[in-house]
C-alpha cells in the first residue's frame, strides 16, 4: 500500500529524478543538434577573391542592410553627391557619375525625393538593390540565405515545446508539493537556447567572416582611430571605412552630416573589437559555434550546465 501511495504521488506518474534526466537529455540533444545545423548552414565557401568585394558587399556581410546603406551614404557623401536638408532629410548635391552601384543609384534617387536615411530600408528601389546585393553574396557562399536562416529558426519550436513541458511539469510539481529546483535550472537553460536561436540574424558565413578579418587588417588605415584622411582615400575608401569599421567612420568623416542624417552610431561598430557588430546579438553565439565544433553547442544552449 505504501509503495502504491508513493507512486501515486509522482507527478504525471514519472518520478522527479527520471523526469529531470529526460528533460536535460532532450535539452542537450536540441542544443547540440542546433549547433551542428548552425555550423553547417554558416560554413559557406572560402572565397579567394574576397578582396575584390565592393564596400557595400562588405558592409552587408558586416552589418546587414543598414550598414550597406550607411556604406553607400558614406561613398556618396565623400563624392559630394548628397547632403542633408531640413527635418533630417537627404538631398542631392550633385549628379550621379558613371560606375556607381545599383544601391548608390537607388539612394541617390531617394535623396532626390528628400527621403530620410532611416526610411531608406523601406524604399522599394533601395530594397530591391539590397536584395540583389544579398543574392550575389549567397551565390558566392558568403551570405546565408533567408530560407536557410528560416530552417535554422525551426529549432525554436523544439526548444519552445520543451519549455512548455517544463512549465507544466513545474506547475504540476508545485501542486504536488514536490521540489522543482533542478527543473527551474534546466528551464533557465532552455530559455537561453531559445533566445540564441531566435536572435540569430547574422548573414555572413564563417568563410566570409574569415575574409572580413583579412580585409580589416589590409584596410587598417581606414580605422577611425587613425583619423583617416577621407579626402585622400576618396569615395571608395570612405565607403570601405564604413563597411569595415561601422557608422563610427561616418561620424569621423563628416560628423555634421552623420548627425543630421540620424546615422545610428552603434551600427556595426566592428573593427576595434576585432569581432562582428555589437548590435547583432548573434555575434556572441557565432563565436561559440566557431570556437569548437560541438562543445560550443552545449555551452551555447546552456544545456551542459544543466546536465550536471
Amino acid at each position, binding site marked *: 500500500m505504501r509503495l502504491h501511495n508513493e507512486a501515486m504521488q509522482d507527478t504525471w506518474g514519472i518520478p522527479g529524478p527520471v523526469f529531470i534526466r529526460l528533460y536535460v537529455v532532450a535539452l542537450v540533444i536540441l542544443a547540440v543538434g542546433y549547433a551542428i545545423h548552425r555550423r553547417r548552414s554558416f560554413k559557406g565557401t572560402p572565397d579567394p577573391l574576397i578582396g575584390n568585394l565592393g564596400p557595400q558587399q562588405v558592409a552587408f556581410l558586416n552589418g546587414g542592410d543598414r550598414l550597406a546603406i550607411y556604406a553607400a551614404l558614406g561613398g556618396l557623401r565623400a563624392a559630394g553627391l548628397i547632403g542633408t536638408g531640413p527635418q533630417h532629410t537627404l538631398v542631392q548635391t550633385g549628379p550621379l557619375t558613371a560606375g556607381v552601384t545599383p544601391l548608390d543609384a537607388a539612394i541617390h534617387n531617394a535623396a532626390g525625393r528628400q527621403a530620410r536615411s532611416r526610411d531608406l530600408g523601406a524604399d522599394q528601389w533601395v530594397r530591391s538593390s539590397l536584395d540583389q546585393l544579398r543574392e550575389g553574396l549567397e551565390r558566392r557562399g558568403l551570405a546565408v540565405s533567408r530560407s536557410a536562416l528560416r530552417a535554422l529558426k525551426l529549432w525554436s519550436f523544439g526548444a519552445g515545446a520543451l519549455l512548455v513541458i517544463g512549465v507544466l511539469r513545474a506547475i504540476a510539481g508545485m501542486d504536488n508539493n514536490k521540489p522543482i529546483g533542478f527543473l527551474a535550472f534546466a528551464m533557465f537553460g532552455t530559455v537561453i537556447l531559445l533566445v540564441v536561436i531566435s536572435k540569430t540574424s547574422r548573414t555572413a558565413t564563417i568563410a566570409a567572416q574569415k575574409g572580413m578579418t583579412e580585409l580589416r*587588417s589590409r*584596410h*587598417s*588605415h*581606414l580605422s577611425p582611430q*587613425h*583619423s*583617416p*584622411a577621407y*579626402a*585622400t*582615400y*576618396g569615395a571608395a*575608401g570612405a565607403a570601405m571605412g564604413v563597411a569595415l569599421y561601422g557608422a563610427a567612420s561616418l561620424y569621423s568623416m563628416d560628423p555634421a552630416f552623420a548627425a543630421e542624417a540620424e546615422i545610428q552610431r552603434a551600427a556595426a561598430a566592428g573593427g576595434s573589437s576585432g569581432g562582428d557588430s555589437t548590435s547583432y546579438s548573434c555575434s556572441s553565439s557565432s563565436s561559440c559555434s566557431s570556437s569548437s565544433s560541438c562543445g560550443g553547442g552545449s555551452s551555447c544552449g546552456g544545456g551542459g550546465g544543466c546536465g550536471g
Partner: protein
Amino acid sequence: MADVEYGVGIGWRPEISGFVAELPGLRFAEVVAESVHAHGDLPAGLSELLERGVTVIPHGVRLGLGGAEAVDPDRVRHLATVAERVGAPLVSEHIAFVRAGGVEAGHLLPLPRSRDAVDAMVANVRRTQAELAVPIALEPIAALFDWPDDELSEADFITEILDRTGAHLLLDIANVYANARNRGTDPLELLDKLPLDRIAYVHVAGGDEHDGLYHDTHTHATPQPVLDLITELCRRHRPPALMLERDGDYPPAGELRSELDAIAAASGYHPIT
C-alpha cells in the same frame, strides 16, 4: 643617409598611411618620433613600410635642443629607442626651443642667433649624440621674426652649429623660401652660403599667405617658387633625399601624387608614384 640616394619620400602620418603604403617607388619616409611608442607595437602602416625595405627616419619635434636648460634624458632615450626600433640610419630634430622655465610653448620657437644660443644648442646636441647610435640631422625652422640681439647671420649660425657638432643638415626648403620672402631677402643667397654637402635630406611643404606674411603651414600645396628653389638647390648640390611634409587638410590622392611628381621633376629624381 648622406652616401645613399633615396630620391623622393614623404612624411608618414597615420591619416595617410594607406596612401603612403601604395607608393610603388617609395624608398624613404619620415615619422614623427614622438608618435611612435618606445615599446608597444609599431603603427601598422609603418611596420609594413619597414617590411618593404623602406628606410624610416624618426623626426623629433619635442626635444627642444635650443633650450637654455639641458635636454631631457628621457626624451633623448626615446628618440634613440625609436631609431633603433625602425633601424634608422639617421634621426633629425630642430634648431629651436619648445619650452622655457617649465612652460611648454606647444610649437617650435626660433633661437636668437647669438653666440650664447649656439653654445647652448651645441651642448644639447652633444648630449643627444652621446645617446644616439646613429647621426643626427638638424633642421633650421621658419621664423616670422628676428630677435633684436642677433649677432650672426643665418648661414653662419647654422654652419657654426653644424661644424661644432658634426651634425648633418636637414634643410627645409619651404622655410628658406618663407624666411626670405618675409624678410625681403634673396633665398639663393642663403643657399650659396649654407654647407649644402652636409644636407642629409630636404623637407618640402606648402604654405599660405596671410596679411602679407607667408606661413609655412604644411596644409597647402607646395607653391611653384618652392619647387623652383628645389631646382636651384639641386643645381648647386643635389641632396640625397627630398620629402613632402604634409600635416593636415589632406587633399585627394591624385593631388598628393602630382605634388610628389612635381618634387621629383624639380629635383631630377625618379617619380615614386
